[in-house]
């Protein structure tokens, strides 16, 4: 393609990307290195239904003056990145100096909001993604071998978990796993323990969230793999059969290599999605046991006093996290591309 043609062809997409991707990221970056001005506080009397009292309030005239001279707020560089709510540099180095073995060190670290969130997010991402790829592949293989009259119906039902809104889906599972819910009661009966409560234990909450993640993500993997199976070269399968390959060997040596590019694709999308895990934490009321970067952003913005700089910083760190996670896959794609050239 000529460069000129390419330019005009790409322009609309490029503009949209600039507007909806580059500018917001730039704005978040800027917000993360600025904080609100020092509050100018005054003491004054405030009165209400329960009498009067001396109270501290913000001096708006003084604050407005500060704001008009420097509308972006105070420039603080990377201070917010290093504070306790984020990378917690001081606390981590303190913990490093004062602890003498790794388990107490990690105990101290996991008490800090960012590392606690990363602990869960990474565990979630790296268990859910492979599990849902395996499960998706299994569903795709079984659906593909069904009689053609049954296929449509089974495909529809297998897709349901993906169609259900994540928040609703997690709420449904949350109530089913409740100690008075159908699954919770069943587990109590199974374990012969009437006090068993999945929501009261961190380990069980994590397992619940991971099961939810696999349940919700598997249909996506299934659809992609199922589409891939339709392009499977029949002659290769037939020759494998003539060579005496068992069903497992056919899958292992013919089907999976054929689907490999799709596996990379699903892994890429799901790594990104799972790293941003959010809805199940809200739906399962799991914040006492599990948090994620997205949940921290939500929490910073949802308090009575909004912390925009803290939320912006966590957003930038989420973008960096996704970039790091995807880098091996992207590097591989880039190498393949170069080789083909």
């Amino acid at each position, binding site marked *: 393609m000529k460069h000129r043609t390419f330019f005009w062809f790409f322009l609309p997409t490029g503009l949209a990307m600039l507007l909806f991707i580059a500018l917001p990221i730039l704005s978040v970056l800027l917000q993360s290195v600025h904080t609100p001005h020092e509050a100018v506080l005054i003491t004054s*009397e405030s009165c209400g*239904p329960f009498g009067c*009292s001396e109270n501290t309030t913000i001096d708006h005239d003084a604050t407005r003056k500060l704001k008009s001279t420097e509308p972006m707020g105070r420039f603080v560089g990377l201070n917010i990145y290093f504070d306790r709510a984020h990378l917690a540099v001081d606390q981590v180095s303190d913990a490093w100096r004062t602890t003498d073995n790794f388990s107490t060190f990690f105990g101290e670290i996991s008490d800090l909001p960012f590392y606690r969130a990363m602990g869960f997010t990474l565990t979630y991402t790296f268990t859910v993604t492979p599990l849902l790829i395996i499960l998706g592949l299994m569903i795709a293989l079984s659906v593909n071998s069904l009689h053609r009259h049954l296929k449509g119906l089974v495909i529809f039902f297998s897709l349901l978990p993906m169609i259900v809104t994540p928040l609703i889906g997690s709420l449904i599972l949350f109530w089913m796993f409740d100690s008075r819910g159908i699954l919770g009661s069943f587990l109590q009966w199974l374990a012969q323990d009437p006090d068993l409560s999945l929501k009261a234990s961190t380990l069980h909450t994590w397992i619940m969230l991971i099961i939810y993640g696999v349940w919700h993500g598997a249909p996506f993997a299934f659809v992609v793999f199922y589409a891939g199976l339709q392009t499977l070269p029949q002659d290769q399968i037939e020759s494998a059969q003539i060579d005496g390959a068992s069903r497992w060997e056919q899958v292992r040596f013919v089907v999976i290599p054929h689907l490999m590019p799709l596996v990379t694709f699903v892994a890429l999308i799901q790594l990104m999605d799972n790293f941003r895990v959010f809805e199940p934490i809200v739906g*399962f009321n799991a914040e006492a046991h599990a948090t994620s970067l997205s949940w921290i952003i939500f929490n910073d913005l949802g308090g009575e*006093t909004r912390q925009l700089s803290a939320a912006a910083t966590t957003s930038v760190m989420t973008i960096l996290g996704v970039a790091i996670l995807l880098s091996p896959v992207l590097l591989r794609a880039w190498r393949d591309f170069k080789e083909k050239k």
Partner: protein
Amino acid sequence: MLKRPLLIAGAALFMSSFAADACDISARVSIVGNEFPAIQTVGAGAQKCVGGEVAANLTADHQKINVAGMSGNPAEYTSAIIANSSIVALMNEDVIRPIDELVAKHGQGLKKNQLITINGKIMAVAFMANAQHLIYREDVLKKAGVQAPETYEEMLAAAQKIRAAGIMENPVGGAYKSGWNLAQEFNNMFLGFGGEHFKAGSSQPNVNSDAGIKALEMMKSLSEYMNPDFLTHDSNATNAEFRAGNVALMNMWGSRAATLLDADGISQDVKDGFNSAGPMTVGGGSIAASTLWWDGWTVAKNISDAEAESTFIAMMNGINPAILNDPEIAKQAVWLLDGYKPTDAARGVFAAAQMNTIPYPMLPYMGLMHSALGAELSDFMQGKETAEKALSDVEAAYRASATEKGFM
């Protein structure tokens, strides 16, 4: 022959008598607020006004959207219904206007204690009071042979007896959901033990103290008698446990207690046994382990004067004392309106006011403290760390956020 004119005259008479207490506005009104029965009543009253569009967005997520919705110019919301905690965010961001002139012009019938005055200017009109107080099952307590507790220590003893008698496994209810609710329960207990959130006259945190540790230990002891899922239970879920007959003692909001039994499928035992009392004290203190609240409405700053006037008139119509003639509405809240006579359901909140309960602090940095408490206390409640460690985490988290917001 006379029928038609008579009908018209009759209709006109009817309309005019209606118009006498209907309200006329000239500009747009848009309300954002929490959703519980009393606020819905106020919103519906404001929407009766004619002459301009009156929109009401009442949602439990109101405080996530009210500042954003009032920051623009012109503001999307012309009025926010808030409480003494949430007015702080609006004051901090300077998005509400002083309403002294509007009160003078249209505020006849407002009582002086309804006017929220900050720094000499009227910033809000309060219409109801609220507090958390004891709700209990009289029948269950009688069966266990105990009186309604007046202190948290008595509550623990009562819970122990109820469990020992095999009446209920987890007789105590509490909105201990990690986050805002858990922090609020800590505030109650902390104030009850005589604690102060900040060092006098400064924004320096002061929760890692004797009172803080005692408050956490009391909460931990209470949680032993709660449903093991307590860290996921907000006040809705706690009420559901009470309605289902699983809970005999709980510290609950007055605004929710009044309508607690207005749901389907509540057994007769729960209905008959329901009773309420004032808030409890703790640790031999004389201050109730609870906080006093008011709910009121404000007028946005970034709107035209015509819109501000219409908003004021419409909101005044929402809190027209005439609404108290409906007994269902009268019992929805402890109304601060002229002519309100306390109903049975108001007993707990009135007791709280008489016990010199401390109003929830209206400090610019209290919201940050509340968030820090909500995020850091759940580890202690799960037994993962000591009370001292949890409280020092709270102070560290608060310091980080207060530094960011320019309060330190």
